[in-house]
């Protein structure tokens, strides 16, 4: 496995505040790694550390095999990035902003500007001043700047921020295509959990500057809590039937019967058969899967009202 990003015990303190605390992670070539955390969890500081914008208090970061250190050669010709909000020179047009960025990235061909404009759907706005763009289009311009030079690694801080649902799908498809067809590696931070679960292959969960968990999407699927939700005309009677059958059923506050036994979740038809045979046919039978949001909140200890 080629490692594109590697951090070892990376720590950043600002006075008494520890923004990033002993972070060790690996991002493999060609994967989309999502860095998940609440506001202030340390996502942006980590990205700034990876980009050499802030110096670590201790530990080290390597990007594309190079240690990120002041005065040393860095891999920025192969890295595209978007940090925090997508900002641009307001008095320059979209095209001029990209042209300025192209010139600061030597070796990027002039056609790259038009290509990026087209790829991000900015053709209509190419000659419009950046200061007049909507938030979503400004975000597209930020992404266009990051993609301009066909980088091997994209480091994106909240790439879907400000985009409408169609824009989010578009960017998701674009990133997936870049990874699939060009072998680009994407390291992205996000708090849009649904987006992360659809896009990323690997997820790192950061809380209070510490990496709580690093897992593949498959592992996430396995770790998510699932439960069978049953409703009948007489839920209490249905509950009694299921208890009698050996299930550890319980009644929720809304009256539904919750069954968490694996055998019930995997074979809900057997549960239905038992209830029908007992004369309490189910009016609803639903296998609910904990979504990423609840999984995340459960992990960071901020779950509200029990698992969904």
């Amino acid at each position, binding site marked *: 496995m080629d490692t594109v990003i590697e951090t070892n015990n990376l720590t950043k303190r600002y006075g008494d505040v520890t923004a990033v605390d002993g972070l060790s992670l690996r991002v493999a070539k060609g994967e989309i790694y999502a860095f998940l955390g609440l506001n202030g969890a340390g996502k942006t500081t980590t990205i*700034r550390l990876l*980009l*050499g914008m802030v110096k670590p208090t201790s530990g080290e970061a390597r990007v594309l095999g190079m240690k990120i250190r002041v005065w040393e050669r860095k891999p920025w010709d192969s890295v595209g990035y978007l940090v925090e909000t997508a900002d641009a*020179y307001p008095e*320059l047009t979209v095209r001029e902003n990209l042209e*300025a960025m192209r*010139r*600061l990235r030597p070796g990027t061909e002039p056609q790259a500007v038009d290509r990026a404009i087209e790829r991000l759907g900015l053709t209509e706005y190419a000659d419009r001043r950046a200061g007049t763009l909507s938030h979503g289009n400004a975000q597209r311009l930020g992404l266009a700047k990051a993609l301009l030079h066909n980088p091997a690694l994209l480091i994106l801080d909240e790439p879907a921020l400000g985009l409408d649902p169609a824009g989010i799908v578009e960017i998701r498809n674009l990133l997936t295509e870049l990874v699939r067809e060009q072998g680009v590696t994407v390291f992205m931070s996000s708090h849009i959990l649904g987006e992360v679960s659809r896009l990323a292959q690997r997820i790192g969960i950061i809380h209070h500057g510490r990496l709580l968990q690093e897992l593949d999407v498959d592992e996430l699927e396995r770790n998510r809590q699932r439960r069978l939700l049953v409703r009948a005309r007489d839920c209490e009677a249905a509950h009694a039937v299921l208890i009698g059958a050996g299930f550890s059923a319980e009644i929720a506050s809304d009256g539904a019967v919750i069954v968490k036994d694996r055998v019930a979740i995997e074979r809900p038809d057997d549960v239905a058969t038992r209830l029908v045979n007992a004369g309490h046919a189910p009016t609803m039978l639903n296998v609910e899967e904990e979504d990423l949001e609840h999984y995340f909140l459960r992990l960071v200890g901020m779950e509200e009202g029990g698992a969904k």
Partner: protein
Amino acid sequence: MSNLAQAIWVEFLKARRSKMPLFTALGFAMVPLGGGFFMIVLKDPEMARRVGLISTKAQLTMGSADWQTYLRFLTMAVGAGGIILFGLIASWVFGREYSDRTVKDLLALPTARSAIVLSKCVVIAVWSAALSVLTCLITLGVGAALGLPSESPQVFWQSGITITVAVCLTIALVTPIAFAASAWHGYLPPIGVMMLAMGLAQLVNAAGWGEYFPWSVPALYVQGEHLGMVSYVIVILTSIAGLAGTLLWWERADQTH
């Protein structure tokens, strides 16, 4: 220097597209236009009073309506006031990256951060020099239009040299303002630093130590004060310190904006 030429191109593009060149040109144009106004008044004070250009109480001590007086007014204004306008340019060129939050896009590029800083300094110097040339041209145009009595070329050369040296000294002194804009992230702190420097210059001048205070030196120079080499060395060292500080800040300081 890694990609300096392209970085300069980009800085000129940003400057060209903004309204700042126009505003600073208008600001500097006030100097020869203001001088021209005084020339009109000095040419015929009674007429000026009659038509209401000046109050009847106005005391005219500036001199007579000739090229020597007009050019002296210009050199004094550039020597004393140049730092305000050049400082504003430096505040904008560096401070706007923080106000527009675009600085982060300049920090992880194949173009070295030092090249970005130097390109900004080049733009500030060229911009300031261009404004000075423009001001001189307007002065010549206004003077000719007013029909000031002809003067020997020596007077023009001498004024030209004085303005050139004063402009160079003043441009050299904007690097600490660039540092202030970088270290305190925006336009306003460097303007504050500039005002502080101007205020201190007045104070130090009054105390008789002006030749040792860098921001007093251009004004003393255009006043024809005899300055020793130490004054010029102090200006150069201040400039180097400001540039080195700015370069070090961009390279080494934590960039959290």
